[in-house]
């Protein structure tokens, strides 16, 4: 299977702290890759490096097979990401936010209506983003990531703080994108029960190190699909 993202011994240090410690992982094309780990385990740092926001201290990564700077810039045009908080302009409407992002990537404004419909924000009219609920802001952030029609999405805790309805809507949106458009998704979440409804592959990370990488079918086989149980067992055995 083709790989969209491949990291090799990727490392990031802040002073004496190893935020990411020699992580080697692969996100297969067409997968929904659940990235699981405690707070501060290095999930966001890895996503930041892939997004070009943070520079690695060691190792390398390939995005669509590209490892060099110019190749990575071109490869990033094919990806979208929401890292930590949705990056939106609070004083603009949803439509104007997307117009601004359209100009950044050079796309046609005609796409905006369709994207707003996809994330269920088409009825927000003149309402400014600062007045949106957390779920609406999250969906607008995803819409900003989707406007360039990426075939790789990186989402850092996209269902954090969402109400049950928002969680279901986001889950359905991601499954639709994956199944209908073939979008590969790297997603991190603390809500393991929710992640287990989405993911086809998992990467477990702790204290900056990748503990295990496995397919969802393996979790199904070993823990009857109970991701929480699988995760806890794995943490216990890694401590031993």
């Amino acid at each position: 299977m083709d790989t969209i993202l491949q990291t090799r011994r990727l490392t990031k240090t802040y002073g004496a702290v190893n935020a990411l410690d020699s992580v080697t992982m692969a996100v297969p094309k067409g997968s929904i890759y659940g990235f699981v780990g405690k707070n501060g385990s290095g999930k966001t740092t890895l996503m930041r490096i892939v997004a070009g926001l943070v520079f690695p201290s060691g190792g390398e990564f390939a995005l669509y097979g590209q490892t060099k700077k110019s190749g990575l810039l071109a490869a990033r045009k094919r990806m979208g990401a929401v890292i930590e908080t949705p990056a939106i302009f609070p004083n603009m409407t949803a439509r104007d936010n997307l117009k601004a992002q359209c100009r950044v990537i050079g796309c046609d404004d005609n796409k905006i209506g369709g994207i707003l419909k996809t994330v269920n924000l088409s009825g927000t009219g003149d309402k400014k983003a600062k007045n949106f609920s957390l779920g609406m802001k999250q969906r607008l952030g995803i819409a900003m990531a989707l406007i360039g029609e990426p075939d790789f999405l990186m989402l850092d805790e996209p269902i954090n703080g969402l109400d049950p309805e928002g969680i279901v809507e986001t889950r359905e949106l991601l499954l639709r994108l994956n199944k209908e458009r073939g979008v590969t998704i790297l997603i991190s979440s603390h809500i393991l029960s929710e992640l287990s409804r989405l993911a086809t592959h998992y990467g477990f990370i702790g204290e900056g190190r990748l503990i295990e990488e496995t397919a969802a079918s393996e979790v199904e086989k070993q823990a009857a699909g109970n991701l929480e149980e699988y995760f806890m067992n794995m943490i216990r055995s890694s401590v031993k």
Partner: protein
Amino acid sequence: MKNLIRADFFRLFKDKIFYLLIGIAALLPIAANALFYFGYDIMVAQSPDAEALEKALKFVKAFPLSLFAFEISNSAGLLAVIATALHVGREYMNGTIRNKIIAGHSRTAVYGSAFVVSATSALIIVTAFIVSMLALGIPLQGWGAEETLAVCLRQYAAGFLITLAAAAAANMSAILSRGIIASLLINLGVVFGLTGTVSIITMLWDSISMPTVAGFFMKTLYAGQLAFIYDDFTAGFFLTTLSSTAVVVAGINTIGNIVFNRLDLN
């Protein structure tokens, strides 16, 4: 970079604070002209050294329009610096600068686009200042006894160039400080620091004989230019400003871009 510039202008022209700053830039010369016109006699009458003040005011009356170039760099420059700090700082505050990097734009393009927009917003603010100043200044103060169109235009151009250098510095500090508050504080600190330096240079003015090594540096440095713009109406001064602005803008942008290309972003 074309796409980034389009996106930055889209955001700039949707920003109400930017229009507020343009409005303030237009109001400042109105207030200054009115104060000078209506308060001239009072200022002279109440001054402890009326003779010295009147001599200074006569100089102002001889060049009422071109002297405002100093204020262009000072007042309009201050507003331009605030506009830049807010425009760039907000991108860090709401995290939208990430959208540009994630979309595959190089750091150099992001930096360059921010500078283009900062410089243009400075030009717009300075233009608002000049238009307002001429609209009220000519009817109230008249065309000064020694004023010429060439001197006037040269001084305005010099004022804009100095503001352009300030915009480049503001852009660098806003991008590198990675926050709206930090960038505002740094930028305002720099502006007030420069204004203080200008006062010192102006006080030393009579003791500096030109050309000297010290004089050359004073003319070349930003604060020195601000001081000189008040007193030097020659074509030579304008050329010095033009060349040193080019050096300052290129230097600041090069250093800022090199650092930005090594900076981790939140």
